[in-house]
């Protein structure tokens, strides 16, 4: 028997109350663990797609204006593309010609964005993440062929589009050579686009380049290269602020800032339950101290120091919070996974529950700190009791 057994014995005496207090702590910690895990999962599911594109700069003609949003200002030309390719640090650059066109499949007509790209430059646009699910990609030697986004092929027409089917784009017949994998998330626009060769695009879309996709060698240089691109093209066209070069890196950083705020909000919400739990501990401990006033007096009479009494009660709330904390971690892990599966099936978004060891250990640490701090006041009250009055208390 030691001080520990003494504290544990008291908890066992009041099983129901101890268990309920522990549950209070557990709920608080579970809320923190679950919400944080889901927060991390949300961040991951959004940024993982983007991180793969961190070396990308999207160059668009136009500018963001107040009130009217993004305003297109004409297009780029081949000289602009040529100049961009020559900027040091640029690995590859691809021009995209895009326009919304009328698409017909088995007499069903719909409007879709048609994008022309140079088959040599496909990699610059798609990188490693956009692949064909069926068929193949565009080739330089192709004439009147197209690659279709997943949703167009599978969902948007009554009849599914397959490889080698013929569809009409702006009245001209194209052969489907490939169907892209489903992208979803931040690249979902790819799912509703049709890709054709640059040569074919000149015919049905025109000569103006709608966007230049740039891949840089070093992500660290992206901002500098973006500035240089804007300068170079603006100079070509003699228009100030004509070009917008957006680095994916800055976009990701903005998103990450946003997620930090989201995490903080989630943490704040979860903390409320922890505050309630801490009040619960303090309440339980105050009741325990009051009920055991007589016992405290007896212990003092037989030689317990104030410190011994303090230790017993702090240890007691410590035990409550450690057990509550561990329980909370378990409930939190289960809860996070339940929420993840629930969100997945309810909204069709894949949000994994990401459990960081720091969150788990942090949760436990917070539980213990809360427990001990909430126990200190009641324990000090117990420790400072006058022995004779405590003994006399019945």
């Amino acid at each position, binding site marked *: *028997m*030691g*001080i520990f*057994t*003494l504290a544990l*014995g*008291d908890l*066992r*005496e009041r099983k129901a109350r101890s268990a309920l207090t522990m549950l209070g702590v557990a709920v608080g910690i579970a809320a923190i663990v679950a919400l944080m895990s889901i927060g991390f999962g949300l961040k991951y599911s959004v940024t993982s797609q983007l991180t793969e594109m961190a070396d990308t700069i999207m160059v668009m003609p136009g500018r963001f204006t107040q009130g009217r949003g993004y305003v297109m200002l004409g297009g780029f030309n081949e000289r602009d593309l040529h100049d961009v390719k020559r900027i040091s640090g640029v690995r590859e650059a691809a021009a995209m010609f895009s326009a919304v066109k009328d698409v017909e499949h088995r007499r069903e007509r719909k409007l879709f964005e048609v994008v022309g790209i140079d088959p040599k430059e496909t990699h610059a646009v798609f990188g490693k993440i956009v692949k064909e699910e069926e068929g193949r990609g565009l080739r330089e030697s192709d004439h009147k062929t197209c690659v279709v986004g997943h949703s167009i092929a599978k969902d948007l027409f009554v009849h599914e589009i397959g490889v080698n089917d013929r569809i009409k784009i702006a009245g001209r017949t194209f052969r489907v050579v490939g169907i892209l994998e489903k992208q979803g998330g931040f690249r979902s626009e790819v799912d509703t686009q049709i890709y054709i060769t640059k040569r074919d695009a000149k015919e049905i879309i025109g000569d103006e380049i709608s966007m230049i996709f740039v891949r840089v060698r070093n992500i660290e240089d992206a901002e500098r290269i973006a500035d240089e691109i804007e300068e170079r093209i603006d100079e070509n066209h003699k228009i100030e602020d004509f070009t917008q070069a957006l680095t994916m890196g800055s976009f990701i950083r903005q998103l990450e800032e946003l997620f930090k705020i989201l995490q903080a909000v989630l943490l704040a919400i979860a903390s409320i339950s922890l505050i309630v739990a801490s009040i619960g501990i303090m309440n339980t401990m105050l009741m325990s101290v009051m009920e055991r006033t*007589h*016992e405290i007096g*007896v*212990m*003092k*009479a*037989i*030689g*317990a*120091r*104030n*410190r*011994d009494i303090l230790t017993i009660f702090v240890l007691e709330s410590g035990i409550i919070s450690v057990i509550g904390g561990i329980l909370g971690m378990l409930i939190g892990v289960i809860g996070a996974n339940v929420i993840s599966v629930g969100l997945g099936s309810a909204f069709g978004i894949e949000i994994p529950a990401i459990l960081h060891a720091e969150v788990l250990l942090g949760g436990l640490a917070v539980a213990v700190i809360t427990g001990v701090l909430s126990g200190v006041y009641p324990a000090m009250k117990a420790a400072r009791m*006058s*022995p*004779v009055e405590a*003994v006399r208390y019945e």
Partner: protein
Amino acid sequence: MSAEEIVRLEGVTKVYHMGKVEVQALRGVNLSVKRGEFIAILGPSGSGKSTLLNMMGCLDKPTSGKVFIEGTDTSRLNDNELAALRREKIGFVFQQFNLIHTLNALENVALPMLFAGIRRTERMKRASELLQKVGLSHRVYHKPMELSGGEQQRVAIARALANNPEIIVADEPTGNVDTDAGNVIMGIFERLNSEERRTIILVTHDFDIAARAHRKLRMTDGALL
């Protein structure tokens, strides 16, 4: 103060405030107890005898006057030093036994040694020896609720002896047990006094119990006669 004097009270008074009413529990008590004495303090309830005992046991502080234990002026001691004094020099026996009911007999007896920082194995060894001494070696692992009143009081006596104190203060130790059990308990006190030369100060309102002490003091209205 002679070397033989172990407890001395000088003009000890105690005033309680019960709401607005002032209660004079002790009115200037002077007392000297010699090492190895067996003293009974007799008096009706409310006479202040328990208060007096609490003063000698360093549980309570006088409103005025001084309490010396082995020559040390206890009014100069802080809470920790008083706790140390209670732990090392004084063994308490209460009328209500006051055992910790979540602990078994052995653990109860070992408790003062825990506070004294004695190692576990030694605590348990000495606690079981003490229980044997009060004739309870067959009840070591019983919780207080599973013991009779007399047995509980013997556990309490064993606990009082845990840190080998020279002074045993007992507040109506036989007040809650039957006559036979009371006799056993008094027998233990007598042995502790005669064989181990421990100083025993007990409070009682029972003349038969008091008759077994060497010196009897009478108390009424907060004063010794």
